[in-house]
């Protein structure tokens, strides 16, 4: 219990410091956090809704449920994969739990995800209708999303210490996953014979509860997707802890 409260204090301190140093005396920093996903949202809307004329009802709502959580996962993985290396000096100088550094980075990115998500939700709620129960269940969808992302980050950041090209391979895998994950097209557009493959896409499993809650709410489908998502995050957690346990004691010798 004492160790948990100590680590929580370290995570809170590091997260606050990250946020403070980024947004210090500048609204532009905060604005960038909104502009970046907003631009992505606008470009996706333009390309798929107006140029490719994809035939989906409430496409903006669909994008909100898929694209914004995807941006959270991909940007968190990209930004934190190198964390143990970039935090080398701090890790080698203090007795800080390396997991606290990753935790702080994931929370920082989560806050950066929530701001544009809520902003877009408010804007869209003027023109689109949302299922109230689906919206109320949204916080539940965030639990496996954050846990899954954190443990993916833990695996990748650990691997990065030992295999220095991990981030390049990650960039490549994320580019492929972007097309293979139904975030700008619905699952129904995937040919039936290939649809089973989506059950092996961890990104989609983590994102799916958002899409159902916002775009096509059905209580039964939602909870099924949520349990799948939780199960996926547990599997990711077990793999990450296996890698971490095997490698953590030599981490300081390799960073």
């Amino acid at each position, binding site marked *: 219990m004492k160790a948990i409260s*100590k680590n929580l204090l370290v995570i809170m301190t590091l997260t606050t*410091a990250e946020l403070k140093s980024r947004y210090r005396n500048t609204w532009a920093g905060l604005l960038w956090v909104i502009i970046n996903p907003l631009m992505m949202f606008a470009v996706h809307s333009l390309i798929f809704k107006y140029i490719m004329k994809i035939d989906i009802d409430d496409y903006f709502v669909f994008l909100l449920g898929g694209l914004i959580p995807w941006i959270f996962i991909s940007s968190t993985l990209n930004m934190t994969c190198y964390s143990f290396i970039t935090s080398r000096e701090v890790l*080698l100088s*203090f007795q800080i739990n390396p997991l606290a550094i990753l935790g702080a980075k994931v929370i920082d990115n989560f806050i950066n995800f929530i701001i544009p998500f809520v902003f877009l939700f408010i804007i869209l709620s003027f023109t689109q209708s949302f299922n109230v129960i689906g919206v109320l269940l949204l916080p539940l969808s965030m639990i496996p999303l954050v846990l899954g992302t954190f443990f993916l980050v833990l695996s990748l950041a650990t*691997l990065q210490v030992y295999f220095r090209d991990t981030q390049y*391979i990650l960039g490549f895998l994320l580019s492929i996953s972007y097309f293979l994950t139904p975030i700008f097209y619905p699952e129904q557009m995937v040919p039936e014979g290939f649809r089973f493959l989506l059950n092996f896409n961890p990104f989609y499993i983590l994102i799916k509860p958002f899409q159902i809650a916002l775009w096509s709410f059905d209580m039964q489908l939602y909870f099924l997707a949520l349990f799948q998502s939780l199960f996926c995050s547990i599997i990711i957690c077990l793999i990450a802890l296996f890698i971490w346990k095997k490698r953590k*004691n*030599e981490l*300081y*010798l390799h960073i």
Partner: protein
Amino acid sequence: MNSTYISDKNSEDIIIEIKNYDLEYRFSRFRNSGLRDVFISAIESPFRFFMERAKRIKILNDINLKIHQGERVALIGINGTGKTSLCRAIAGMHGKISNIKINGEIRAIFDTTVVVHPELTGRENAQILVNLMFTDLTKEERRIKVVEAIKFSEIDKYIDTPFKHYSKGMKSRLFLSVVSSSPSDLLILDEVFAGADSFFNEKVSNRIKSMIEQSGAALLISHDEELLKKLCTRGIVLHERKIAFDGNIVEAFAFYNKINLKNQSVRRYSF
């Protein structure tokens, strides 16, 4: 050439006890390589890939050590002999090790010029340091510690300016003021005096001295012979990954200088 240090302290005062401790570094064939190389090795020669074992290099060899309450111990040795690695092992950075028994709380500092957040002010960085180092204190106790450390550092005039504008000496002052603000069972300081000016070194040395007197022991690493002689009572010389000498600080430096001279003359002959 081994010398055993006989402490007059009793066994109940032991803060650290290390028995037959080895630290190894796995030197795999993938060193400095990436996943791409692992993939290529696995395809090119699968048998070798799965059968070849990683080589191991010893960083520390058969370390036996006891540190008692109130002792000020200097770890002496040329660069690369494993001084910092030993301190990191004691601080628990290499995980829980059954050969190392710790009786109390350890506070370890390995660098005083680490910029935690250069954009933030000195005060904010002091708050961060206090939060990272004194996690067991209450919010109010940590606040008081920040105020006291800033006062001790004598840089209150610049404390609300960004940390990135501080000189190395100023950073060191603030850092050392935080570090030395509270006693702990064992304080590990690795080259932390580098960068601070001589006047402040004197001031901080006095504070560390009084801090040690208040409670625990200290394990110091520095290349400053005079400073260590002033601060420490006991010296441990690490040579070729082993404890080569453990005893009085003056004798430890005599031993260290002797092996250094010997090594230098061997090097001269070999050219």
